């Protein structure tokens, strides 16, 4: 492939010709130097490389210019979004200082609408819910990816893969409503079970018997939402495991699980990590699903089973409609923080996945 692309590398090429550089090897005998030439070849000067050029064609110039401009548009859009949110929200940052990140109170009802505003509750909520989502969603996704690649019967494989991809296009409001109506009673029961046996671990303890609409429930819903992404990425990585290594393991008498442990998992580990980070990026920014199932309260809640919490995205939805002008600025600032967070996670995730795909070859 590289060869093909090499000869259409640049649009502007023109003919030029340069010559001559000093002799690069031992001189021939008549130059007066000691003719201790060991080789019988007649050495010649190695000329300089010629620059290959051609006359530019107007249609190509226009073509390339258009494509260039259009592609920089994505850079433009990202910068505009980021810049605008930061600019608009700047007032809130200035007014609240670092407290914007660390304060817990979101004071919507102050007279001038100037807060003080703090995102701490919502940030911890975002982290808690995402942690639950990853802890539940990633193992299930990896197992599903292994199942689809190595255990599923040939005839079923394609349909099952389609179903997984289909899951990714379900509207998030469906997940939210389903979580609220169908999953919630089950999740409450499970939460009570976890509390019963594990309440000696502080994060599973609750100050009172309120298990409904907790970060635990929101985390489970998000876990289900990220399964398609993580499974897809993991499956693609596993499918690229070099066949020769798999055969080497089997030829040594390995069982299927032995082969997976010795070859597939070491090969795919970093790709799976990348996939998990992509799932994390999705979970960080999920709005309506969380909004539907969670009881949004502005207090920090480390106790995953206890019935309230929130995340930044759902906070924005909750407050934006009735916010005063100044509060809107604060919400935009919160949006900027969310934007930067998800951008960073996605950038790192993509780099990890690219590197995993390349290094495994």
């Amino acid at each position, binding site marked *: 492939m590289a060869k*093909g*692309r090499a000869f259409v590398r640049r*649009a502007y090429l023109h003919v030029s010709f340069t010559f001559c550089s000093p002799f690069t090897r031992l001189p021939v005998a008549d130059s007066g130097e000691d003719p201790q030439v060991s080789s019988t070849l007649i050495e010649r000067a190695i000329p300089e490389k010629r620059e290959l050029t051609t006359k530019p*064609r107007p*249609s190509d110039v*226009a*073509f*390339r210019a258009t*494509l*260039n401009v259009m*592609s*920089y*548009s*994505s*850079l433009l*859009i990202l910068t505009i*979004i980021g810049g*605008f*949110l930061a600019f*608009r929200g700047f007032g809130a940052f200035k007014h609240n200082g670092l407290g914007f990140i660390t304060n817990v109170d979101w004071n919507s009802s102050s007279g001038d609408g100037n807060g003080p505003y703090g995102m701490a509750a919502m940030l911890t909520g975002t982290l808690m819910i995402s942690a639950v989502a990853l802890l539940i969603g990633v193992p*299930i*996704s*990896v*197992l*599903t990816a*292994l*199942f689809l690649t190595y255990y*599923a019967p040939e005839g079923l494989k394609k349909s*099952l893969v389609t*179903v997984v991809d*289909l899951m990714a*296009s*379900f*509207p*998030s*409001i*469906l*997940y939210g*409503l*389903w979580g609220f109506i*169908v999953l919630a009673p089950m999740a409450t029961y499970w939460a009570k079970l976890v509390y019963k046996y594990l309440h000696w671990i502080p994060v599973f303890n609750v100050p009172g018997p309120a298990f409904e609409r907790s970060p635990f429930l929101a985390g489970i819903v998000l876990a289900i939402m990220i*399964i398609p992404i993580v*499974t897809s990425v993991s499956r693609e990585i596993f499918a690229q495991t070099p066949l020769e290594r798999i055969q080497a393991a089997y030829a040594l008498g390995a*069982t299927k*699980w032995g082969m*997976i442990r010795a070859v597939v998992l070491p090969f795919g580990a970093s790709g799976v990590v990348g996939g998990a980070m992509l799932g994390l*990026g999705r979970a*960080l*920014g999920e709005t*309506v699903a969380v909004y*539907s199932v969670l009881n949004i309260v502005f207090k920090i809640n480390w106790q995953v089973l206890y019935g309230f919490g929130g995340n930044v995205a759902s906070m924005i*939805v909750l407050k*934006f409609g009735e916010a005063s002008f100044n509060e*809107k600025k604060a*919400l*935009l600032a919160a949006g900027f923080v*969310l*934007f930067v967070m998800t951008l960073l996670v*996605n*950038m790192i995730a993509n780099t990890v996945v690219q590197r995993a795909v390349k290094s495994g070859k």
Partner: protein
Amino acid sequence: MTQLAPRKPWKASRADLIPVIGALILAVVASFAVVAFTPMKGKIAYALLFFIFGAGFQMALKYRDYGRRAAIDSLAGSVAISGAVLAFTPVLSLLLTAIVKGFKGLSFGFFVHDMSVANYQSPLNQGGVFPAIVGTLYLIILATAMSLPLAILTALYLTEIKGKAAGFIQFLVQAMSGIPSIVAGVFIYSALLLTTSLRGSTIMGALALAILMIPTVTRTAQEVLLLVPQDLREAGQALGATQWKTVATIVVPAARNGLITAVILGIARIAGETAPLLFTIGVSNRVNWNPFVGGQASLPIYIWGGLGDGSQTGIDRAWSAILVLLIIVLTLFVIARVFGTRKVKTK
């Protein structure tokens, strides 16, 4: 030359499968027995017990026949299958719930009427989602029109030209695909609606959706364009065609089906989005053909309203609208698959 009939002696024969199935049935019986006689209860009890007994019996069978390694291999297989079951069960539940709860509100009238003489609390045979469906389709068309040129041209830049900035642009496109939908919506609101006299309208919602659509279409289009064999491009250039002509007349038609898939997948991505529309599209209870002025109904907003209303009929309407939305998204998905796997017809 004598010839024997082909066999697959490594595949489990019928005789081999009997103990396996027997063990599974035994596991079901055992689970029920344990639930009946101990305080364990609930779906999670049945599921956990079935896993323990099922995997345990399979392990025992393998251990008896082949030893410890085979038993562990069998356990690994059971765990993998269980993981897959855990992943697929919610999908089924989601679909079934949407169908069961949404079905009763569906009627011919539901598809054809608007909400000008009814509200969420009216009985289900009044009012309908016609404006919402039209609005959603309108949004799709506008968002596609705005994002398609940008996305396809960016994909072409990344695959055909691969300039120095290609790596950077690639990185950006991937990063852009992680923008939360609420951020896109809030951005459009604050950039355009807060500062100008513009009010919520279809075009605003479409802009927010376009931001989300561009990265999806670009990535898929890029993958599809890379699949076009390099020989085709070289053939075009060997004939003396300019690069743009090669791309326009050879590469793009060769990738045509894949590009259509890319667009449809992008549409499927945004069709069900709620958050970007909440503050950008305004409201309407009848069809609004003007994209620039006045709010517009849309299925996600309709659902949102039904939930917010709180009444039982409101929630019922919401489920019916979810079902309609689901049908639209699934249809788009199937069309995308069909186009994606069809080969370009050769003359």
